[in-house]
């Protein structure tokens, strides 16, 4: 069985343990087409608009169900619009993860919500969630995260271009986890560490690295991504979770140990601390906030992040996009100018 999953946070370990393939639906990029294209207003984020059009046009018909995490008002609205008013006729699941910091109430609730999701998924998957399989799935995803972390953290010495590395990392959005792990292991060996690569290291934070041309423009301009905080990529790499012996506890621990994310309403100051830490560890000399237009969770954090970077004298480029297929000429010019400025050692 396979489910399409809307961004961002969901218990992938549970899906893996139930033998359900998750195929993430980040849009897809491009202009929305088909009958569903105009059903969400143009001032709503393109991810929700595109996803509805894509599903309504049958683009996701290859999967057997869809999972809507409680990411934002737009995806929440999309979930009822597509399933109740047309656009998605197969099984739909929701994962209403708690918002805000970990509190006693939210910890209790998260476990209840995950168990409720499992009860919904079990008949769909045609199997019970066995603790041993869940433990194996947790271990599998822990190793995947370790590989991803190694690749992302070792970026300055990695013999791979950004477009190639990101293509690899993003295949995790739709591959079976075992297959993804195999290619990550292989890449870890293939992208052997060498001397620190030439070029200007930058930190990139945002929703999803679309269009990939951004990475090419960065590279062409003489920069590379030394630190990643894309919600689709680095922000979901769990580095710090303790290995609890109880698999349920391990799933919960992994949820709370994930890097701070605006869509889980992490404290902006905590996010700023996390990002400045990432910046310092990676040696990045500038930060690009690659924002999806109309994405309120991300937009609200921008002032706090700018303040945090400015306090360290780190130049920031705020780049807005709408899941275009190509980077606009204007955006290319802005990225090039930003890298030139970093190269010249000037503050923003």
């Amino acid at each position, binding site marked *: 069985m396979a489910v399409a999953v809307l961004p961002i946070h969901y218990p992938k370990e549970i899906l893996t343990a139930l033998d359900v393939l998750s195929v993430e639906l980040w849009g897809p990029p491009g202009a929305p087409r088909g009958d569903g294209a105009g*059903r969400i207003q143009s001032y709503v984020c393109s991810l929700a608009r595109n996803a509805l059009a894509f599903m309504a046009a049958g683009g996701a018909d290859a999967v057997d169900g869809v999972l809507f995490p409680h990411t934002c*008002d737009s995806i929440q609205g999309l979930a009822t619009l597509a399933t109740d008013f047309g656009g998605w006729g197969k099984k739909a699941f929701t994962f209403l993860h708690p*918002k805000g910091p970990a*509190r006693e109430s939210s910890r209790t609730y998260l476990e209840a919500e995950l168990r409720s999701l499992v009860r919904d998924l079990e008949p769909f998957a045609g199997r019970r969630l066995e603790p041993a399989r869940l433990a194996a799935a947790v271990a599998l995803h822990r190793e995947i995260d370790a590989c991803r972390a190694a690749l992302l953290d070792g970026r300055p010495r990695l013999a791979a271009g950004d477009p190639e590395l990101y293509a690899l990392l993003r295949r995790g959005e739709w591959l079976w986890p075992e297959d993804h792990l195999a290619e990550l292991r292989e890449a870890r060996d293939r992208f052997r560490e060498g001397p620190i690569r030439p070029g200007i290291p930058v930190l990139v934070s945002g929703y999803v690295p679309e269009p990939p041309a951004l990475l090419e423009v960065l590279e062409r301009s003489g920069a590379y991504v030394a630190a990643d905080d894309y919600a689709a990529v680095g922000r979901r790499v769990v580095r710090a979770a303790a290995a609890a012996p109880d698999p349920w506890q391990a799933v919960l621990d992994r949820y709370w140990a994930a890097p701070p994310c605006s869509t889980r309403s992490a404290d902006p100051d905590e996010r700023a601390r996390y990002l400045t830490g990432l910046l310092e560890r990676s040696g990045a000399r500038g930060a690009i906030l690659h924002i999806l237009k109309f994405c*309120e969770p991300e937009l609200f954090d921008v002032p706090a992040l700018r303040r945090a970077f400015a306090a360290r004298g780190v130049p920031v480029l705020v780049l807005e996009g709408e899941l275009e297929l190509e980077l606009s000429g204007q955006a290319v010019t802005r990225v090039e100018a930003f890298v030139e400025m970093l190269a010249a050692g000037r503050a923003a």
Partner: protein
Amino acid sequence: MILRRAQFELAGRVVGPFLASLDVWKRQLRRRRRAPRESPFGPPLESVRKLKELMTAHYFQGRFADGAVPVAWVTSGFPVEILRPLGFHAVYPENHAAMCGVQRLVPGLSDAVEAMGFSRDLCSYARTDLGSVVTGRTPVGRLPRPDLLACCTNICQTVLYWYRALADHFHVPLVLVDTPYVYGEAKPHHVRYVRDQLEELVRVGERISGRRAEPEALAEVARKAKEGTDLWADCLATGRSRPAPWTGIDGFFHMAPIVALRGTDTCNAYYRLLRDELRDRVRRGIGGIREERHRLLWDNLPIWFAVREVATLLAERGFNFVCTSYTNAWAEAGSRIDPRDLIGSAAFSYTHIILNQDLPNRLGILRRLARDYAVDGAVLHSDRSCKPYSIGQVDLKERLAAELGIRVLLLEADHSDPRAWAQEQGENRLTAFMESFG
């Protein structure tokens, strides 16, 4: 502290009402001096004077609240009933932002926060409020500094980000009541989660106020809130009469007490007065507009800065908004409150407000309003600043038109920011809509 408390009480009981009366008197004087103008509206409601007095006194008293009593800034969908017995003075930034919207102060306030990096694509209420906080500019003189920020996500997730920014500015505790969205039926653990958070809220509120939330006091506030909600529902229900004794636009302004003063005697006394006046108008056949030819439903928040212009344009051609889904929401939120179990019933009730439920529920409400109020058309305000309210309206439009055989217009604007409103285009669309009625 004692002096401050005395100022606070004096402001609320004497000076505020006096200033409000003075303001009303000045307005009346100005009106008398002006040559009478032809108006498509019926005679103004007498209760307006009391409404102005009430809200002026509330905001005037608020100027002296910090230092006198604990102050909480709360979202409109927050279960304020729990804070009232603890002596909190509640400030509603949304209500304040709406006032800024009416007075067209939003562009200036928004510019201030846009300069700080907040995007213009964010909710204009949030931009207005944050702008007011950083510039100190407000139409109410002064807003009291909060001791507590209390935010409930049952109206949107935006409020959480907005209140985080406020918490960052004021360095005060932020209490979050996170309400899982209801698809179909709320699951028991969803309601339990909200209940747990409300119990956490009680503990935080007690700590800040230094008072205990006594069960009797909670029950009493719950009873008053429920009564206030029922009274507000009675006021709205008068709109079913033909002609409707007031306009939906009147309703937008008269909802201020049920939002900002819910759970108080003052609120309930006001709605008894308003209800009686409206019923009297029904008996005497006095309409909200002079000649009611078509009855309309309004969906979503009002366009605060253009509310009068839009209503006048329509009223001149005999169109009246006799019901709105927005004002109706306040007649439903507190109706499930049970004074015997405020926390439990509030958890259920506040999880089930219109914006926290799926589209079939929303369609059901619109359908019921359209039928109960016998409307022959609907305007769905596609509000750039309120995505949870606006997503789905394209489909709702089609369904309302097909199922009920009424004409439906989708009108794009913003609830507060006039820069997102194309007046000529908007008026053209409204005019064409009215022409389609023949």
